């Protein structure tokens, strides 16, 4: 079958997560992605695990091998004249360049957008950085937790009487990569219409502020800030109300993470009929009329709601509860851990995981498609590249450097 983006040529000069993930999404849809790494050490994520049996090895990083599926890899020292010349030649033949260094890095190598545009006016350059290419924090340092804090996500996670928490994992890095891929495709559409390339300046902090949702908008309506509330939501405040520090989870309750026989589930009834269905399902229709649990009161009596639900849940497995809830149209999620997520029947049925054989890691099941496409299915053509694996294929066969050039470059540490 055909691929959606098989006519596109991408350079990935990114490192760690956001840039490489962005490029890997384009690779999954068939674009040719050439990953340019520093000779010797390569992408920093090669030093990050997980490694088999926790033994670090630059060709055995699970993270690197996931984020760079389907790419070709070359090494170039971008500080050397030769490396720069080869890089610019590559740029002249490419549609999109993706980078996620701190904003000062590419210009300091004389490889900023202005320079690259000279070589290829049709080029789309995607620059992903923590704070963006402008603004007072531009050169500040940042990590995933910094983005969670600045984007307003952290403030609403955790217990009220403890420190706020970041989301588990590296969610903002990944989602910045995804939005970068969207922005790149927008620019491709425009370029196909007009012939003009452009520079995309994407800020991970701003991704976080968007993913946070509407509380900052709510605040402008009501002046009330939302608080964290552990495993429960926090009630939305009404206009004119003072700062909320109650633990009242609000009228939508139960939205509750509770234990069952073999793990946890999240009951998520956000409409009155769903609460009624839940009562019927538990064989307790009388709760619908119970004054403690009528609309507007369940939040204040959340502890009692939890007791009733837990009593019912403790005899049932996650699967039993989920199936019953589905039949009754009660929204409920199974709280997966990474093991049960890996084995989740829905993922298995839809072929979410894709097995790729890596020369050093062996056969690994990676998260595969981001979505299903009927005509142009997601497909990774190869495992992540070994460091410099495609130097010869790209630099000699395609770009016309001689074997002598290659040997010389290698001896000088340029490739």
């Amino acid at each position, binding site marked *: 079958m055909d691929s959606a983006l098989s006519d596109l040529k991408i350079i990935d000069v990114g490192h760690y997560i956001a840039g490489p993930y962005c490029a890997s999404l384009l690779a999954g849809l068939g674009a040719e992605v050439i990953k340019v790494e520093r000779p010797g050490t390569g992408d920093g994520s090669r030093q990050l695990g997980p490694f088999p049996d926790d033994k670090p090895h630059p060709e055995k990083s699970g993270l690197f091998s996931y984020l760079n599926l389907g790419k070709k890899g070359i090494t170039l020292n971008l500080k050397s004249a030769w490396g720069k010349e080869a890089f610019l030649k590559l740029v002249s033949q490419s549609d999109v360049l993706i980078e996620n260094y701190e904003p000062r890095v590419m210009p300091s190598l004389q490889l900023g957008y202005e320079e690259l545009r000279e070589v290829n006016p049709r080029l789309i350059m995607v620059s992903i950085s923590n704070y963006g290419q402008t603004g007072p924090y531009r050169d500040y340092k940042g990590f995933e937790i910094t983005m969670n804090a*600045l984007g307003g996500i952290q403030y609403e996670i955790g217990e009220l009487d403890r420190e706020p928490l970041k989301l588990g*994992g590296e969610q903002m890095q990944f989602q910045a990569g995804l939005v970068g*891929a969207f922005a790149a495709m927008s620019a491709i559409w425009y370029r196909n219409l007009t012939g003009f390339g452009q520079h*995309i300046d994407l800020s991970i902090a701003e991704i976080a502020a968007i993913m946070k949702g509407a509380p*900052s908008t709510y605040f402008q309506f009501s002046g009330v800030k939302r608080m964290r509330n552990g495993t429960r939501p926090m009630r939305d405040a009404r206009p004119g109300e003072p700062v909320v520090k109650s633990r009242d989870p609000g009228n939508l309750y139960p939205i509750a993470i509770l234990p069952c026989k073999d793990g946890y589930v999240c009951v998520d009834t956000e409409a009155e009929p769903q609460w009624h269905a839940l009562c019927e399902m538990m064989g307790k229709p009388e709760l619908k009329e119970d004054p403690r649990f009528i609309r507007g009161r369940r939040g204040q009596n959340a502890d009692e709601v939890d007791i009733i639900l837990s009593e019912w849940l403790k005899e049932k497995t996650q699967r039993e509860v989920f199936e019953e809830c589905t039949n009754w149209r009660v929204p409920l999620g199974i709280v997966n*851990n990474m093991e049960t997520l890996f084995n989740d029947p829905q993922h298995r049925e839809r072929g979410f995981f894709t097995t790729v054989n890596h020369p050093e890691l062996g056969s690994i099941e990676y998260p595969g498609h981001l979505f299903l496409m009927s005509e142009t299915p997601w497909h990774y053509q190869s495992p992540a590249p070994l460091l410099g694996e495609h130097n010869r294929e790209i630099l000699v066969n395609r770009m016309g450097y001689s074997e002598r050039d290659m040997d010389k470059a290698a001896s000088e540490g340029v490739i």
Partner: protein
Amino acid sequence: MTEFALQGVRIIDHTIAWAGPQSTLLLADMGAEVIKIESCTRPDVMRGGGLSGRRIQKFWETGPWFLQLNRNKLGITIDLGKPEGKALYLKLVKISDAIIDNFTPRVMPNLGLGYEELKKVKSDIIMVHLPGYGSTGPYKDAPAYGDCINAFSGLDNITGYPGKPNMRPGIAYGDPTSGFAAAFGLLAALHYRQRTGKGQVIDVSHFEATSKAMDGLLDYAINRRIQRPIGNSDARFAPQGCYPCLGDDKWVVITISSEQDWLEFIRILGNPDWAHDNRFATSANRREYHEELDKLIGTWTCQHDNYEIMRLLQGVGIAAAPVLESGELFIDPHFEARGFYEASIHPYTGTKLLPGTAYKMSRTPGGTRWSAPLFGEHNDCVFKDILGLSSVEIAELTAKGIIGTEPSYARG
């Protein structure tokens, strides 16, 4: 004339709530013509009534979420349950590039508007579905909200204090994530259509879009090890944490990512005696005694303002940021300088600052052209100017209740 990246792209948008509107917001901000379809009986649930109750006039024009997610879109109403509504809809399909919906998988086929039917009207149409779990598989009919997806994707499980997993993530992570994914998928399909003339169906599952970003799956795939929550700390370096500051419930996050960071950090703290304790000599030591160290760091941070700490530490190259509250985001000097929050000027809600796009494009910057549509605001524009209906025809459709400018609940 300002140019837009997605000029010439027309999208029919059936979506409500967050994920779908987030997706078409990305497209509309880039200049695609997004026609948002509601019906008098089923307005977008985000239109209002929740925050302000139903007491105020035209409460359905006042929802903060709706305002935030629907700028730059054309808002129309069609009752798809009626034959005239369906005919009108098919006229629109004929001149559109893509359709996006977030119904459960049964809805569009039940209306006689499945892909096979629409293809007969527009052979290269692109159709994007955005159901919670996807249109196939054992969960396809299960109802899903954001918290269900947070649970299934593992996000609840890996978020928490050390030893205390299953914290509520505070955001409906699957909504923006799958919205971004749908927008990207739609453009990829459009690109393919441009080359081949072929349309297709894209099935975006919130569950899959979120699972794709779970790097903890790799450790399970390779070592059969299950990721546990580690609070605010980091597996690579220490300390990293969230510390109390001056003021009521004010916090700062700090990451010490190298030995140089550590030396600068303790210098700024005024070289307290505890900083030279052997327990804190290396990154590995500091990880081991993280909890004690956090308490000691807190004795310093609690005497300072969180913004002040950010400036002090970032001044010497250490990552730090205040934990911003909802009321602080749109006044942060950096977001302000970048113009990230954009003004929405709206007849019923006044002027509000809403999150803009997360990126700037040098040639086609996009930005707010108009605020979220009033209910049925663009009926005339779309039905008259785009579809070429006469005023008489529009009046007939209005009289029959096929289109309208007030939700049916407005009449009691």
